[in-house]
């Protein structure tokens, strides 16, 4: 039996390879064709993906980014606001001394030194080589320690069984999740996130996505020219999400 197999190995490999190519092209043309050279090798450690949010352009009452993110990732409200997951939210700020108000979106800040990664007992909360902080739900045991540790309250716990998840965004009961910086879009080479896309489409153009380590990217140029700050910068976590106007 084994000799028969080994004699046919090279022929089988050829047929398998050819059939796989055909099957791949037939079954998942969207994924296959959009694959670019960068994404093919996985997360590039020379890259650092980040967001720049100009809060002066952020319109009060506009939730385009929130709706787009939740639509893209299949995050649905289950009618229980206290336990519903939210990957991104609009925060309205009122300065106590002056009464000045403005709003801005807050999501996982994708810190360079994430406290959530430090405290996770199983390494489920981890930072990818390209700076995106994710939860590996295969290893997450649902202890919620990362939720205690996050200085930005960015994480949500899934409190009930879920169905009809988006294929590119698996989510399940008993695990923790947060903004993935649309890692599925990033890996496809689309170079944007759902929130940034929606903000641009709506004409506000308050958000920019890009490679912080690439000096020629739009985000790097704007950061160099205009400057930025981070939420809770005193914690020295060096987040990848930068803000202007806070």
């Amino acid at each position, binding site marked *: 039996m084994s000799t028969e197999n080994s004699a046919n190995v090279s022929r*089988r490999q050829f047929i*398998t390879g050819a*059939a*796989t190519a*055909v*099957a*791949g092209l*037939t*079954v*998942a*043309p*969207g*994924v*296959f064709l959009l*694959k670019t050279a960068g*994404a093919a*090798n*996985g*997360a590039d450690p020379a890259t650092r993906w980040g967001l720049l949010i100009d809060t002066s352009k952020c319109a009060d009452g506009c939730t385009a980014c929130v709706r787009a993110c939740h639509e893209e990732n299949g995050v649905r409200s289950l009618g229980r606001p206290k336990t519903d997951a939210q990957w991104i939210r609009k925060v309205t700020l009122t300065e106590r001394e002056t009464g000045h108000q403005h709003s801005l979106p807050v999501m996982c800040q994708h810190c360079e030194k994430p406290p959530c990664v430090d405290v996770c007992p199983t390494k489920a909360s*981890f930072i*990818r*080589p*390209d700076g995106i902080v*994710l939860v*590996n*739900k*295969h290893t997450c045991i649902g202890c919620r320690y990362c939720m205690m540790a996050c200085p930005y309250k960015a994480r949500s716990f899934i409190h009930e*069984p*879920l*169905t*009809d*998840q*988006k*294929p*590119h965004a*698996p*989510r*399940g*009961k*008993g*695990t923790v999740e947060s903004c993935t910086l649309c*890692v599925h879009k990033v*890996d496809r080479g689309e170079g944007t996130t759902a929130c940034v896309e929606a903000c641009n489409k709506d004409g506000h153009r308050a958000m920019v996505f890009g490679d912080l380590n690439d000096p020629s990217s739009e985000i790097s140029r704007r950061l160099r020219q205009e400057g930025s700050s981070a939420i809770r910068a005193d914690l020295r976590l060096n987040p990848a999400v930068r803000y202007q106007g806070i």
Partner: protein
Amino acid sequence: MRPGFAQFGLALPALLLAGLALMLTGCGKVEAPAPHLVLEARGDQCVEPTDVIRRNHMEILMHERDEAKLYGRRNPDHSFVGCVDCHVSPTASRDDPATHFCMACHQFNAVRMDCFQCHTDRPSDDAPTKRSADLEESIERHLALQADGIETVQEISTP
């Protein structure tokens, strides 16, 4: 030894023997229940030969999932979404294992898998490219067999 313990001396071996006898009665020709008609897979061929994929799909999936999740190295040939898109019927559900390609075998073999607690358990119907001509053909064949009164794979005569 406390008085009255001697009578337990015989009871314990007797109980063990009885238990053994009961277990042995369970041995015998196992009639496997006929697997239900699960929608035929789309595409020309699976990404790996049948005997390879049948034995090793777990290792392949585990390896690829770690690569994809931790390092972003996604292999479209071994994508889990790809498996579901090809093999699982759009109307299948993880709650009704008889209709679901993966759950049917897993339930019969009592091999626990929790993939579908997080991953969607059916091909997404919002991407028209996924509902290829293959899928429509598959569904037609499936419905035709059911209309002929054939409900289980065993009822299909193999040529």
